[in-house]
């Protein structure tokens, strides 16, 4: 397991196409080391954005995909045994706090609310992390920043952020980019002609119009990139869309038929 913070540094520049002022706004927020909340629908580019920003700011990025069984120890660290006795091992959060990385908690609402409260002292003026088992208080490195992401489309009752947690963050809202930008992103990421990407994006727009009318979420940019990659490698557009979009998005045969209609309408 890599413990050195440097292994979390991004080696190559991630591809990210800005949609608005988000880069400048994020840079300002980082200048103040403000905790950030990135919210937006699935597959719209939140994770890619934070990767790009970490690269741009030259900070290590420690990413954690949150889940329900995650405990506070999984975040801050724990004692492990070795030949000489017990030894403390920093968790990913502590690692970022100590060495000045950006800690990114992806889909933070998936973690139980009692787990996420450990970040509270890090997100206010104290900027400290208490390792109660170790009896140590770690003052955050000046470069440390906490970033969490969250998809407000979730409607499960238990998956809302506590108000006491969410009020500690400045928020950047993400949505699927405008058609032209989204087409350019799909074309670039999947190496397909812009015209193909435009078609796919138009299909996605049709599906997004059905949100709240049978679909919980529309077709995401990520799905479009998957579809475009299949098309790029020679799979027929219809089959590509069926595989990566229609059937990935819904189990309802009527809805699948409607989505298939969008696909048929677009590809000659």
């Amino acid at each position, binding site marked *: 397991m890599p413990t050195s913070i440097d292994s979390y540094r991004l080696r190559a520049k991630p591809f990210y196409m800005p949609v608005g002022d988000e880069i400048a706004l994020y840079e300002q927020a980082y200048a103040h080391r403000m905790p950030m909340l990135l919210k937006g629908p699935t597959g719209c580019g939140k994770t890619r954005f934070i990767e790009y920003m970490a690269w741009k700011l030259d900070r290590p990025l420690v990413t954690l995909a949150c889940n*329900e069984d995650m405990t506070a120890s999984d975040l801050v660290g724990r004692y492990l045994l070795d030949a000489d006795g*017990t030894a403390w091992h920093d968790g990913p959060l502590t690692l970022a706090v100590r060495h000045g990385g950006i800690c990114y908690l992806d889909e933070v609402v998936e973690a139980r609310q009692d787990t996420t409260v450990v970040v509270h002292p890090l997100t206010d003026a104290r900027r400290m992390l208490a390792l109660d088992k170790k009896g140590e208080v770690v003052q955050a490195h000046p470069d440390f920043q906490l970033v969490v992401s969250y998809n407000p489309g979730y409607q499960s*009752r238990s998956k809302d952020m506590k108000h006491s947690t969410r009020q500690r963050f400045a928020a950047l809202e993400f949505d699927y980019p405008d058609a032209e930008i989204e087409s350019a992103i799909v074309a670039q990421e999947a190496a397909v002609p812009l015209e193909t990407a435009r078609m796919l994006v138009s299909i996605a727009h049709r599906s997004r*119009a059905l949100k*709240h*009318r049978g679909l919980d979420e529309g077709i995401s940019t990520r799905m479009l990139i998957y579809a475009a990659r299949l098309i790029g490698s020679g799979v027929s557009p219809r089959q590509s869309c069926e595989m990566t979009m229609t059937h990935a998005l819904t189990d309802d045969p*009527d809805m699948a038929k*409607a989505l298939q209609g*969008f696909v048929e*309408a677009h590809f000659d």
Partner: protein
Amino acid sequence: MISTGVLDLTAVVDRALVSSRQSPSEGLRKQLLGWLHALHDDDPACAVALASKLALLLAHASVEALGRWIVTGLRMHVGDRSRLRAYLALSDAHALKSLDREAAEGGAQGAAASLTWLLEGLTERPMTIQARERDDLYAAPLRPTLTPTHLLLPNDYTALDGADRYQLYRAAAHLLHSTPGRPAGKLKPMSLAVISAIEDARVERLLLRDYPGIRRWFADALAHALQPGVLSFSALISRMSLALVDPNYQDDNYWVNKARTLFDSQASLGLDDYAAFRHIGSLLANDLGQMRVPFRAELYRVPAAYRDDNTFLWTFESETAQSLEIELQDPPAAPRGQRPKGDDADPPPDAPGAHEVELARYAYPEWDHRPAVMRSDWCTVIDKLPSWKTVDGGAGSPAIAGAHQALRLVRAHRFSRAHRLRRQWEGDDLDLNAAIEVMVAQRARMATDPRLFIRCVNQERTSSVLVLLDLSESTNDRLDGTGLSLLDIEKQAGLLLARAVAPGPDRIAIHGFSTNTRTEVSNYRLLEFGSPLDDTAEAMIACAPARHSTRMGAALRHAVRSIAGEPSDNRIVLLVTDGAPSDIDVHEPGYLVEDARVAVHEAHEQGVHVHGLAVDPHGLAYVRRIFGWGHFDIVDDPRALPARLCRLYARLSAA
């Protein structure tokens, strides 16, 4: 007169229905009888042929499918009575094949869900699809009728129109690119028909610009409708329409080729100039007049089955002959949920409601948004049990139509979310933190805590859900194609959900409400929390009457009070409604919406989650206002309500 000399058609129909064990609604039975009479009037031998096989036919196909099968025969064998008789007597080779095809097809309503979504996605506006019934067996085929909010889909599409017949009308080109309701003025019927056909071609080309794939949809259907070599008006229009869409189609007619040349040269300049294309239409109509092509407006139907009848494009001034009567089931202008005038008096002793059992009365406040005050003790909610009289009084047995099916709750992901109990005496896995502490304690020669296991248990969070049904008058409206009302479907949805939930740890209650001014908000307690779902309970749900209006806020506050005492850690009120709140003592639009919004907010503060399910395609604005972003769903197709309700329940109750 039902009896027709030698053949008693009523008896034939009744015998056939009994032997095939079909029990259609009275309306359908009459329709079937009507078809037999119509056949009999035209050719008694045809009626005899059909009557002889009626029991067999009905054993294979529903009454609606049988109707489409008869229409298929009439269209296949126009003017050839001997072959028609053979068809109806099932001695024609095509007859059985055609019967199988019609029996397998669910009718226009079955296709409505996916088609609605397709149109809404393409046009980004709410659409409602209704089936349009054919009234005469011998009438020309119906065409779809479009309004800015509704599409009436012919219920007489047969397999002759194409295998995927109900998906024919797919592209909504008019909705996106045509200006509706232009004045028809003094245009002659033939000019109207030609200009409309040119307009069809123009908007379809505009649509093709964005969606190249639809050329296949259109070209196939136009080729299907083609009458090559024929010089009738309808045939010429069919030939021209195909020529304007399919560049590979070759036609030898001068007029068709002139239309193509004029259209294409104008199209090369741009497709947005409506006036220019209208001028082309006028020129072409003029040519047809000079060619003395006969045109009879009352017999003309747009040749391609997928195109609408073009009433969308025109408004006719006081010409009743041409303006098509469109009866929408849900006229957008009519106020909903309110009874007709003169119906507000006390119910006569036999009326529904006369024998209801009153349980208790409660007073609730109401929010008046303009002065921003909460009016205390403003509404009176009356807890009631529905009257059993409702059942005897003609509504049939207390069984709920369609409720025999079972819905499976998708809750697998709830079980997979096992809860881990740490520091247990025994268990499946070592608790890493506890184990390390034990080792540390051992090395330090201290007493150890042997509770070092993790045990997984399915310690589910339990939910309590109160389904609150809107029982306003408007839910009595029959939905076309099904013979059911929204009320039936609401009851069916509630009952199916209750049956699905009952075996599990969750608790469910079903209430229904209707209001007649603020002094009488009736709340029917159809199923209580924790009470068994037995025959009595099911009959109680079946008995719930629908009348009066929808005062949502008071009903919501009462529902929150009812669920507040529930021991579960997840308390949900699911409100099913078919329209915006209204009542006859409130005239200000928005007043009851604001009150309901405040009631929802109060519920959230008390830890009760309120989620709205609106069976109203046009309801986005008010449901969003009332329930808040992410706390509502819109159900376009009422028949999907049971499945949507169950899915919603599974999602909201997931821990």
